[in-house]
């Protein structure tokens, strides 16, 4: 228990920067804004033919990754941690990107098999 205590105290000292209430609400409005933009695209821009589905889909993915960044960096506080911890969480995620690349490639091949 006592070791936990000392850790948190120097923890707080080392990061001068932390989440204030103002910052929390800022991040909330960013997340809400991005979600509204996604709805605009899905419910208005695509049905009315302003942008095509094959353009909209990558846009959704980019906006989703932006939301993911805000949640992990600010709400989960990762941006303010030591660089070692940041890398040990972010670098393994590259494997996920690898799996995405492999399976998109593979599913192209499945289409050919089915035709």
């Amino acid at each position, binding site marked *: *228990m006592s070791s*936990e*205590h000392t*850790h*948190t105290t*120097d*923890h*707080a000292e*080392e990061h001068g920067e*932390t*989440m*204030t*209430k103002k910052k*929390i*609400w800022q991040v*909330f409005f960013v*997340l*809400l804004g991005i*979600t509204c933009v*996604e*709805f605009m*695209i*899905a*419910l208005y821009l695509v*049905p009315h033919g302003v942008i095509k589905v094959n353009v909209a*889909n990558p846009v*959704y*993915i980019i*906006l*989703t990754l932006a*939301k*993911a960044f805000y*949640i*992990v960096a*600010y*709400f*989960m*506080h990762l941006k303010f*941690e*030591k660089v*070692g*911890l940041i890398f*040990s*969480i972010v670098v*393994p*995620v590259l*494997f*996920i990107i690898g*799996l*995405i690349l492999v*399976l*998109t490639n*593979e*599913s*192209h091949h*499945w*289409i050919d098999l*089915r035709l």
Partner: protein
Amino acid sequence: MSTQASSIDHVKTTPWAGGRSPFSVEYGKIMMWFFLLSDAFTFSSLLISYGALRFSSAAWPAPDIVFKAFPYVSENAPLVFVGLMTFILIMSSVTMVLAVEAGHRGAKNEVVKWMLWTILGGLMFLGCQALEWTHLHSEGFWWGSVPPLEKLQEFFSADSHANAVVMTTYGHQFANLFFTITGFHGFHVFSGVVINIIITINVLKGTYEKRGSYLMVEKIGLYWHFVDLVWVFVFTFFYLV
């Protein structure tokens, strides 16, 4: 220390010299991060297999037709209900950070207040999900089952030109993946609510006040934000794309 001391006598004080956490993070919090990393792998393998099956399919049920009902309110409001669910979950994430922020100041009553709002948000989300599952189930979707063909074809967009076999096959895949992935996520939300309740009881009992830090609130906070994070991806890949 005398100036003649060899370099071996010199006590290293770098973060990696031992005797302290090089990440300046308490053990339990690091373990929570690595648990979440492993959970991220589980969720991404589910979502990526969903993506691969859908990408290679000849036709797929159109999200704005499947998810067009708002229970008790409207039968034709595409994606509005899931929008509400997303809003509830993001909102509960905000109340969670506010609880963590109150914990940094040691404000016990504020922590309790924000934790209760977070629990309420989680329960509301679960309620919405129950309604959505009930709705899809009443239409005939479930693990391994799809609506009869004349009803099933309504869920495909008019320009997909899918035949009966294609619609049945991919209807099944959609149903299985939808219930498995949202079910697995809902199970995470449910566990999160249970753990949140336990933590709130501990806050009320003064356990963390005695301990001198509200670090447990931060740890469960990490878990709760992760659940929100996964929903952001589920939302994009099931409802928008």
